[in-house]
Each structure stands twice: as C-alpha cells, then as structure tokens.
C-alpha cells in the first residue's frame, strides 16, 4: 500500500512540472513584465525609470530562461523561470505583484472558502442522496416523474440566476439574512446561510438525477430481486442493500472533489463578498496579479492530483475486489 502511494506521488511530479511549464509559457507570453509594471504603478505620471525599478524589485528584470551573464549554475538559477516557477515546488509562493505574502494570504483566505464549500458539500450530498432515494423509493409514481422533470429544469438554469434571484429575494425582499459580507466566529452563520442554501439548491438538478440513475441501476440488479424475494420490505431493501452498494460509485466520485473544496467558488464568493480563495482568484485575474494566479493554478493542480490519488485509494478501501497493481 505504501509503495503504491509512493509510486502515485512520484507520478504526480512530472504532471506538476508540466503544469508549471505550461502556466509559465502562458503567463509570460501574455504579458511582458513591462505590462505588469504599468498596471501596478498606477495611472498618473509613470516613467520608464519607475517601470525598470519595479521590475528589479520583483525580480522580473532577469532573463526568462537562460542568463548568459551569470556564471555556472546561476545561468539557470538567476532567471525568472527559476525564481517564479521552480520555487513553487517547495510551496514557496513568494510575494504577490502587489507585495503581499501569498502563502499567508492563502492560509487566511482558505477558511472562509472552506466555511462555504464544506457545508455546501455535506448538506448538498445529504440533500441529493435524500431526494434521489425518495425518487427511487417512489419510482414509477408521479413523484419520480415530476422529480425528474424538476431536475432537468433546474439543471437547465444557469448558476448565475440562482445567485441573482436568491440574493434579491431572500436578502432584499424578505430581509432575513445580510445581503453580503462575512464575519469570523459564530456570526459567520448569518452570512453563510444564504450562499450555502443557494449552493445546495443550484446543484440539486444535476446531482439528484445522477444519484437517482445510480440507485435505479442498483435496484435492477439480481441481488435486489433476491432480497425482495426473501420478503424484505421495500425501505429495508433500499436502505440496507441498494444504498450500501451504490455507495461505491458515489464515494469514489465524491472523494475526488474534496481537496478542491479549498479552492472556493469563484462566482458565489464575489457575489456575496466572502473573502475566500475564489474571490482571491477573481481579483487576481482582474488586477492581473500574475504571481497570485500562478500560485492558484499550481495549488489547484496539486489538489486535483491529491484528489485523484485519494480516489484510487478509496476504491480499494470500499471495494475489496480492486487490488493495488
């Protein structure tokens, strides 16, 4: 097992190298350091000297890949690529183009993101499974039929509408919760209620339908028929046998997502003014803070790969037939 995990981790390294090279190419082709300097130095009275100084301070004045002027290993180390990309492997995110410590920012902004993402994830999972079970339970009745119709209709609505509509209705017309904002501690509840509910509701359509098909597939299997033939009641069949067996595809699908919860949600966070990593990313895109975007891309890839590995491991844990190869 440990050998397997080690091998998977080693396999992650070339992928991260690939991600790194790709983002580096993208970012330094898009905008030259001169452009970045101009964005950050502001609008009024910007001189070429100021731009040069800005670049020097942030290490953008070096050559991209190869430094002919340096000696020995410095030829490769004293470059933008080494400074800005290779160091990410040690999770040394460096400083943002605005001078902030990215690592510290990420570690503080991670919590609000998790405060939304985790409840949405858990409550969502519970709600979707409940609805799907209900629909499987009442299959071939009007509940199932209209449930599917409602699901298809709900998944055809853009997430933006859920947020705009929810904020307008609950925040403005009903004045039940604050329209937007965030606060730490127990007070966070009031701010998170609405985004969490909207997050759960906007996922109902696609997810409920997905779990329902898994349940129905399971229900049509032979062992379920056997169980019914034994005279087990329908709820017992459903909860004991179907749910347990359906957990395998559900769990493995879910595990892959868990690490990505850290990344937060881009749109919801910016709509509700929640200072998480999602809004951090959006701000970085808008203000063209490339250091932050690079860090987030790298972090996202790492988390994705962790998710992959977790999925593989969870397969083996829930399904004894799968062995590590």
């Amino acid at each position: 097992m440990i050998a397997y995990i080690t091998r998977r981790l080693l396999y992650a390294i070339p992928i991260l190298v690939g991600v790194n090279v790709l983002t580096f190419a993208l970012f330094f082709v898009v905008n030259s350091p001169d452009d970045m300097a101009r964005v950050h130095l502001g609008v009024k009275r910007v001189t070429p000297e100021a731009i040069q100084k800005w670049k020097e301070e942030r290490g953008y004045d070096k050559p991209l890949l190869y430094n002919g002027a340096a000696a020995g290993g410095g030829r490769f180390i004293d470059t933008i690529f080494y400074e800005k990309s290779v160091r990410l492997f040690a999770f040394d995110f460096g400083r943002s183009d605005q001078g902030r410590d990215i690592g510290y920012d990420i570690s503080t902004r991670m919590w609000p993101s998790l405060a939304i993402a985790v409840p949405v994830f858990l409550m969502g999972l519970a709600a979707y499974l409940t609805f799907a079970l209900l629909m499987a339970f009442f299959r071939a009745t009007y509940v199932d039929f209209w449930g599917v119709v409602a699901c298809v209709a709900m998944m055809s609505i853009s997430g933006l509408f859920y947020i705009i509509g929810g904020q307008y209705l609950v925040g403005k017309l009903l004045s039940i919760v604050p329209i937007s904002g965030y606060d730490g501690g127990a007070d966070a509840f009031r701010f998170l209620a609405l985004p969490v509910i909207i997050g759960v509701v906007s996922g109902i359509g696609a997810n409920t339908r997905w779990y329902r098909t898994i349940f129905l597939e399971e229900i049509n299997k032979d062992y379920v028929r056997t169980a019914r033939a034994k005279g087990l009641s329908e709820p017992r069949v459903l909860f004991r046998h179907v749910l347990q067996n359906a957990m395998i595809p559900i769990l493995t699908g879910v595990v892959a997502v868990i690490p990505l919860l850290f990344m937060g949600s881009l749109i919801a966070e910016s709509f509700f003014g929640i200072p998480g990593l999602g809004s951090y990313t959006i701000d970085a895109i808008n203000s063209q803070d490339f250091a932050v975007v690079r860090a987030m891309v790298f972090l996202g890839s790492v988390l994705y790969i962790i998710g992959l590995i977790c999925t593989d491991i969870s397969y083996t844990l829930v399904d004894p037939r799968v062995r590590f190869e």
Partner: protein
Amino acid sequence: MSFKLEILWTDALIYLLLVVVALLVRHVRRHEHLMAPWRKVARSASGMAAATVLAFFVVIGLADSVHYRPAVEVRDGKTIYAVEVLSVFDKLTTKLRTQKAKTYSAPLATHRYAKETIELPDGLQVRDYPRLTYGGAHLADPATEWGPDIARRCLYGIAGGALIWLVVATLLCVVLARWDPADTGRMWRALRRGETEIPWRAILLTLAVVLAVGGPLVALAANYHVFGTDKVGQDVFYQALKSVRTGLVIGTLTTLVMLPFALALGVMAGYFKGWVDDVIQYLYTTLSSIPGVLLIAAAVLMMQVWIETHPELFDTVLARADLRLLFLCVILGITSWTGLARLLRGEALKLREMEYIQAAHAFAVPHFRILTRHILPNVMHIVLIAIVMDFSGLVLAEAVLSYVGVGVDPSTISFGTMINSARLEMAREPIVWWSLTAAFTFMLLLVLSANLFADAVRDAFDPRIRVGRSFRLAAQKA
C-alpha cells in the same frame, strides 16, 4: 450584385458542420444497424418534442450565420460595400434592429420607463413619461387603444399560427398516409390518439405551442418592443434571438474543434498502449489538472493580445468579435477534450482485445486500417453522446465566463453579456426585470430542450454512458 457574401470563421465551421451532418445522415440511412438507435430516438416523445423546439433555434441560428455586406453605391463600375456586416436574420428583423428607443421601456410599452422633462409645443415644460419613437407609435391615444390593439394583434398572431399548424398537420397526414398505405382519415385518427410509431402527436402539440406563442410575438414585434428595450433602447427580443446563435456556436463548434484531438489521442492511447498511452495520459492529466476557469482566463488574455497585435487581419468589428468567439470555442475545447479522450481510451482498450481485431492483427492488417475500419466506427456512439451531452453545459459555461470577463467579445450579443448587463438593473426601482427575464427564458428553453434531446439520444445509444457531467458541474460550480 447588390451585396457581397462575407464568410466569417464561425460561419465556415457551421457550414462544415452541416456538410458533416448531411454526410453522416446519408451514411446512416444506408446502414440498417446504424439506423436502429436513431429509430429509438425518434420514438421518444420528450426527445422529439425537444427536437422540435431545437429546430426553431437552429433555424434562427442558421439564418444568423449567413453574413453579407450590402452595397452602398456603384462608382466607376466598382461597387462599394458598406462596412457593416449583416446576416440574413438581421435583414429579416430589420425593424427590430433599427427601431431603437432612447433608453429603457417596459415590454409592450408605449411610453418611456422613466419620467423626463418634455417640451410642449407651446414652449412649456412638463415632467412626464415621453412616448416611444417606435413602440406603439401607431396608436393615437394609447390609453384607450392599447389594450384592444394588443388583443387584436395577439389574435391575428394566434390565427396565423393556427393556419400554419393546420397546413403542416394536413401535409404531414397526407404524406404519412401515402408512405404507410392507409387512408388519410385513419391516419388522422391514429395521429390524434398518439398511436403512430414516431410520436407525431407530441411533435404537433409542441409545434402548436410554439406557434401559439410565436405567432403573437411576431405579430406584436412589428409595432411594439415585445420584451422591452434595454438601457440604450435596443430591443431585448432582438438581443435574445441573437444570443441563440452565440449559444449554438459555443455548444456545437467547441465539440467540433476538440473532436479530432480527443478522437485521435483517445483511440490511439487505448489501441497502442505502452509509451503512446503513457504520453497521451500524461498530456491529458496535466491539462485537466489545471483549474478550467484559470486556464481559460489565461488563454483568453493571450488571445486578446494576439488580436490586438494583428489588427490588419480584421477589417470589421464583427470579424474581430467572431474570431474571439472561435478562440473561445477552441479554448473551451482544449479544456474539455480530456473527458472524452479518457472514455475513448477505455473503450479502445476493450475493443483491441476483441477477437476480430486480434484476427485482423493475425492477417497483418496495418494499424491505420484497423483503427479507421474497426475501432473508430465502434466508438462513434460515445462521441455522439458526448456531443449532445456537452452542448447544454457549454451554453451555461459561456454565461459564467462572460460574467468573469473572459467570455465572448463585449460587442457580441450572448446570454452571458445579456445577464451581465441586466444584473445591475435588478437594483433599479422600479425594477427593470425584462432583460433578465428574456435571457432567462430563452436560455432555459434552449438548454432544457437540449438536455431532453440529449437524454433521448443517450438512452437510445448507450444508457450507461455518462459523459459531460464533470463539465456541467464545473460550469455550475465556477
């Protein structure tokens, strides 16, 4: 000649798509085993009803994909063409396009939405709701004539719709009766009771609903702003219809441009195994491990720079916007091909162990031939399902991306740009609800019918295949 055809990049690709579809249809019709699943699709009532609605969208989208430049004058035997590029759809809706109000007006309104100081003929100034330049301009006294006029036009519209419906239904009946030897009367009864193999009743019902709604819309659109006007007085109905093409282009071309890569790489990885497999797997794991929105954002920024540095390639605004749309499709394609490639790889892995492939190996059939003759045809159903399932997710993704600011060109009318500008109107008092409602309705219709149709296709071809889910989730989550 009084116009010059202007073929934009996306137009060309849409034409290509049409040709491909036509060829495929011909091919399928000649092979009974390929026809079978399609027959199953045709038997699905919800699928065919959705297809009917989709057909209307497709017609609008196609009419909006034939562009030309009208001539403005002939001088010295040389024709000078306007700079503005129009589409056939624009021509058909000239009134909607050109009859602009000054600013906001509510649906079917005759007066502006906000009060303004109006100068009376006698020089006095009063604050009142000014009349619209076009909306209901034919009414002498809107207060009394407005209601009856709307009702009358609605009735005309419904009557027109009913007439068209009757003609279509009768024609259908006659054709069916001739095709499947039976007398027209019995056919009609069968149709009414829904006893035909293809659910013609559902199709005709859908058609009836569409015509009953569409008829009055068309009848009213000539003299009113049916969905109101936006901030600069453009007709919202026109914008919603224009958004359809953008949605269709994103939904179809994205898959079209990514298809060759996904197909080639996925099948090759599964078929050859070994180092080819490793390289291809490495490639798509790397790509898919970068958060989609970030990759798209970075790539869109890069593309903007490219467009900026090559202004000479674009002589019109539309050409620029169009290329940006195409780029967006390509970038979305790059970020979404990995899912399909993974599925295809799995399928190819299974297929290569099949006996007939092994036999082909034994006869030393070249790899290329095995791939094209034996593997490819047997994975096509997956490709098809992927295409239809991805469609709605892509339309939804466009809206989100345009919101983040990395979507279509701001001058392109799309659902995303409509929502983005309508968002702020929610805070106005009294609330300006119609832009958002129009975008919501049209988008829901398009995506819903696409979803229903996709379900029908999937059920017919392979109900156990699940593609597109991850992407749709990503779009919702973003």
